[in-house]
């Protein structure tokens, strides 16, 4: 374990963000992401960044809007009820085409719910969540090391596409500790931001806005956004596949849930069962291409979706499979997590 340090998922996300060049963080406490805001409060000043404990999630996301408008890599984090409050700001960030990273360490809902891990904000993250026709890029780590590494991707994609990126994780991964290697950024994008607000010396004034009142102007702006989303869908699908070549039962799970699913795959494989796994890493864009190829190749296979919710990602799986393969589901939420045994028992019935 040489060169490795023990970190919680929340801390790894924070350190990953800093290594990825994040120099502005604003947040508001909520369990189970409190380690993240505390970590940022001590680390940000060390790297000459700005840390603000905001008065609310609304203020925090709008501070991120401001810092990003001024050309700085900016991030906020929260957990489910807090992310609901951030939706207004995320919509504005998408509308103004600003890069930003928003971390959701999900807990049980709806309402105040509880502080147990859950995956029930999938719809909110992948469908826009706030008002208007927009999309956030959504990435879902499933290990502490990956949580660290994906922050480079998160900030890189945010800058590349000038779009909000949501890191969707949950209380289990946020709080669990694993030894990780802390490296620096691999995902390079141009750091030039000619659109940023820096004062208009030597150029025409820049305006950051999402307001298009003139007839037809909003339609033009929205069509441009849709073009961007199409490009992202085409180019940025990411997933991890296990044993897909010969699998006739394909599990689909993301984040913490994928760790349990992997355990089940291992156990079943040892018993000679041809089970595989698709673990989406980007939830939007959803890795639909791999499902299309599975439909062509593994024509007799069955798909089993497992979520810490009562069925949200399954809709994307159904859309991707498009009726060509049967799709089954196991889900729990509100504190419950489907176990390896639950998965194995379900597979016996398939």
């Amino acid at each position: 374990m040489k060169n490795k340090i023990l970190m919680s998922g929340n801390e790894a996300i924070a350190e990953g963000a800093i290594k990825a060049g994040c120099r502005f963080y604003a947040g508001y406490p909520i369990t189970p992401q409190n380690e993240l805001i505390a970590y940022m409060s001590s680390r940000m000043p060390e790297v000459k960044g700005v840390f603000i404990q905001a008065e609310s999630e609304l203020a925090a996301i709008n501070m991120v809007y401001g810092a990003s408008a001024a050309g700085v890599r900016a991030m906020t984090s929260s957990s489910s009820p807090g992310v609901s409050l951030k939706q207004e700001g995320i919509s504005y960030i998408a509308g103004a085409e600003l890069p930003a990273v928003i971390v959701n360490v999900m807990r049980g809902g709806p309402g105040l719910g509880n502080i147990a891990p859950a995956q029930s904000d999938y719809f909110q993250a992948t469908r826009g969540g706030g008002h208007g026709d927009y999309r956030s890029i959504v990435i879902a780590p499933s290990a502490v090391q990956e949580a660290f590494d994906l922050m480079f991707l998160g900030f890189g994609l945010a800058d590349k596409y000038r779009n909000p990126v949501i890191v969707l994780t949950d209380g289990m991964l946020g709080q669990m500790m694993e030894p990780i290697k802390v490296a620096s950024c691999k995902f390079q994008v141009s750091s030039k931001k000619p659109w940023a607000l820096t004062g208009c010396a030597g150029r025409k004034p820049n305006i950051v806005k999402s307001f298009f009142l003139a007839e037809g102007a909003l339609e033009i702006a929205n069509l441009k956004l849709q073009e961007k989303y199409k490009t992202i869908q085409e180019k940025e699908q990411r997933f991890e596949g296990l044993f897909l070549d010969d699998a006739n039962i394909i599990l689909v799970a993301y984040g913490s849930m994928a760790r349990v699913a992997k355990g089940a795959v291992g156990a079943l494989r040892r018993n000679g069962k041809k089970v595989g796994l698709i673990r989406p890493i980007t939830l939007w864009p959803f890795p639909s291409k791999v499902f299309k190829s599975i439909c062509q190749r593994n024509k007799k296979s069955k798909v089993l979706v497992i979520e810490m919710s009562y069925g949200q990602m399954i809709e994307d799986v159904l859309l991707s499979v498009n009726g060509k393969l049967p799709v089954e589901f196991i889900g729990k939420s509100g504190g419950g997590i489907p176990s390896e045994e639950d998965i194995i028992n379900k597979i016996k019935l398939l």
Partner: protein
Amino acid sequence: MEKIYRRPESLYDTSTHYCPGCGHSTVHKIIAEVVDELGIRKKVIGIAPVGCAVVAYNYWNFDCSEAAHGRALAVATAIKRVRPNNIVFTYQGDGDLAAIGTNETIHAANRGENLTVIFINNAIYGMTGGQMAPTTLLNQKTATTPLGRDAKFQGYPLKISEMLAVLPAVKYIERVSLQSVPETIKAKKAIKQAFINQVDGVGFSLVEVLSPCPTYWGMNPVDSLKWIKDVMAKEFPLGRIK
């Protein structure tokens, strides 16, 4: 011939979308003049509100951002923190600053952010059609107080400037009015001071401007100015508050 008055460089040569007699256009011009006079145009970043002044950046020839309704001071806080050498100001109506954005207002002030805030108090929501604002006067009729504001049901006009003045981190607050030429000249002086404070690193400065909304007050522009002087300025006394 010597030109002694000209359009400031910070103000675009364009026609206005504001109603005749509206105070917004006057204050836009004052800000442009002050920015020119202080020579800070290339460093200024303005934050436009949601309200009738939502497109303020159509008039100002410098960098601007929009903010969601009420969130201008959160946006401004971050911009100033990451770019301390820029001059950052917010321009906000009473609905924006004193209703939906009260939280952001109080906390940016309490943190003592080195910002300049121009607060347009026209005692009404203009853009959405003349509904009651927190600053609407008692007995004032609006779209949502058809019988006039009644303290029993809608409370009293909110005195944001006096409330903020009790915060130790707040450095400068002045209430001014556009009711007459001499008062408008004082308004410009106060706005200039609020910018100078930021240049000098003094801290949070706010100028509240009593400003006419002839359209939704249901008055002509001249009567609107008289109403500010006779009625509004009695409820919201002019002068330096802090």
